[in-house]
């Protein structure tokens, strides 16, 4: 017989200190009758509970777009991070529970020098660049975000991939104590790239955005950003990177293979089975705009897919 007294209070029910200390302010705001809903929205800290830390110096990059950046308040409050809930503002509300220090990333599999890196070791691998990329979500919206990071290739080269390595799998953080236990997707969330995609200079190992460290809800403390693919390919809060020979399991592909292919390159000509991908709404804009092939990065990445039928390998 198992005798274990459950804790009096779930960790998930403990109010973060910052929110607790702001309770009177919150109540005062919430008391405004009809505007209560609006007040709740404003009552949420726009960037989560953690204090922002600046990342500097950041080198500029020729890969950056000069399009208008998405408002940082939007980019940090409208997120898909299903471990923290499927609502767009759930990650903002819940991700602060995640401990992002200390943090280690295991790099393993078909490499000559498998090893774990802690966050500071990772940050020392290469100079940080600011990369202003378009981000296109498979749901039909897009943003322009200034990321801070360096090419994933720098990390991969440090561990020396073996000749048999053909793919890279990203395993992300999962902790049932602080994340949803419902099997919405298979946890931990996994993603993957072909090795040549992972080594592409645009594939960014990312530590920050808008000049500061990544907010928790955006995948702190380290994620990848693959700007020519739908957003879900850019795995958040990575704990392991595996080099493998076979195409790895990826969360959305496993969930609905007919809807989310392994490649999932942004492609206006290949519809999602349930909605068109021809247009997108740039967050902050009213009208839809046409979606571009490879999210507008065809010049940089189209050669990776030469001779491939992109309707078959969607």
């Amino acid at each position: 017989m198992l005798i274990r007294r459950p804790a009096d209070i779930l960790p998930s029910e403990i109010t973060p200190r910052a929110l607790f200390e702001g309770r009177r302010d919150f109540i005062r705001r919430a008391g405004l009758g009809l505007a209560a809903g609006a007040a709740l929205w404003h009552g949420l800290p726009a960037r989560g509970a953690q204090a922002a830390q600046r990342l500097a110096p950041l080198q500029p990059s020729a890969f950056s777009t000069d399009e208008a950046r998405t408002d940082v308040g939007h980019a940090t409050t409208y997120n898909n991070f299903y471990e923290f809930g499927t609502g767009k503002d759930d990650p903002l509300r819940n991700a602060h529970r995640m401990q992002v220090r200390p943090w280690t990333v295991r790099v393993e599999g078909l490499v000559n020098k498998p090893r774990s890196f802690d966050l500071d070791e990772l940050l020392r691998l290469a100079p940080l660049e600011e990369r202003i990329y378009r981000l296109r979500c498979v749901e039909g919206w897009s943003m322009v975000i200034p990321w801070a990071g360096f090419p994933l290739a720098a990390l991969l080269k440090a561990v020396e991939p073996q000749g048999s390595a053909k793919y890279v799998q990203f395993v992300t953080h999962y902790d049932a104590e602080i994340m949803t236990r419902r099997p919405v997707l298979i946890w931990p969330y996994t993603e993957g790239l072909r090795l040549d995609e992972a080594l592409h200079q645009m594939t960014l190992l990312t530590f920050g955005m808008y000049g500061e460290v990544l907010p928790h809800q955006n995948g702190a403390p380290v994620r990848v950003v693959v700007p020519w693919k739908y957003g879900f390919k850019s795995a958040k809060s990575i704990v392991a990177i595996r080099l493998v020979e076979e195409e790895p399991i990826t969360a959305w592909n496993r969930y609905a293979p007919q809807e989310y292919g392994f490649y999932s390159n942004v492609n206006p000509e290949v519809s999602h089975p349930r909605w068109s991908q021809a247009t997108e709404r740039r967050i902050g804009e009213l009208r839809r705009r046409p979606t571009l092939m490879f999210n507008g990065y065809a010049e940089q990445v189209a050669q990776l897919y030469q001779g491939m039928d992109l309707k078959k390998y969607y």
Partner: protein
Amino acid sequence: MNLHAPTPFQLAALKVLVLALCLVPAALLAHGWFAGTLGANPIETLQRGTGEWTLNMLLVTLAVTPLRRLTGLHWLQRLRRMLGLVAFAWACAHLANWAWLDLWFDWGAIAADILKRPYVTVGFAAFVLLLPLAATSNAFAIRRLGGRRWQALHRSVYAIAILGVVHYWWLVKADVLKPLIYALVLAALLGVRAWWRELERRRQIAAGAPQFKGKVIRILR
């Protein structure tokens, strides 16, 4: 106030009160739109909000008959037409938001969605089926059609509600928790009708009502 027999004045006041309550979520969404507090993607927030309120009001409308039977508050029936029309108004807002704010009257995209995307197809079908119900939600139409035909027509609300829930179920990317809740509530509301019907059938058979191949022939008074 006698809860079982409100005066005409009390009933009218009740109607006004219920209608005002129904308008609160619409006022909140409208306020949010103009105040810029609907989040990063306000058009999506409106699309979700109007859709969920269409379903909410359809389920509220379908709850009137069971509630009346359980509580004996027969005047609840007098609110039903208005509640149904509120559901229709939400459906109109949902459709308008989609065709106007989301797709900006891009008729090609609208037609392609209706024809090619099953979740849009069923949602649109539900809206089209709502049109005759809304058009006949008045005393004149009831007199014109006759109670029996009017009732037969308005039973299509069962199919409309099912299509509405299917529409929601098919559009979510993953995590069908919310559509599942709607489906369960709808199943309960339709199930209790089926069960009562079965009880009535048994009662009539026991009472020696005329039958034809085991079916009770309904005798309308």
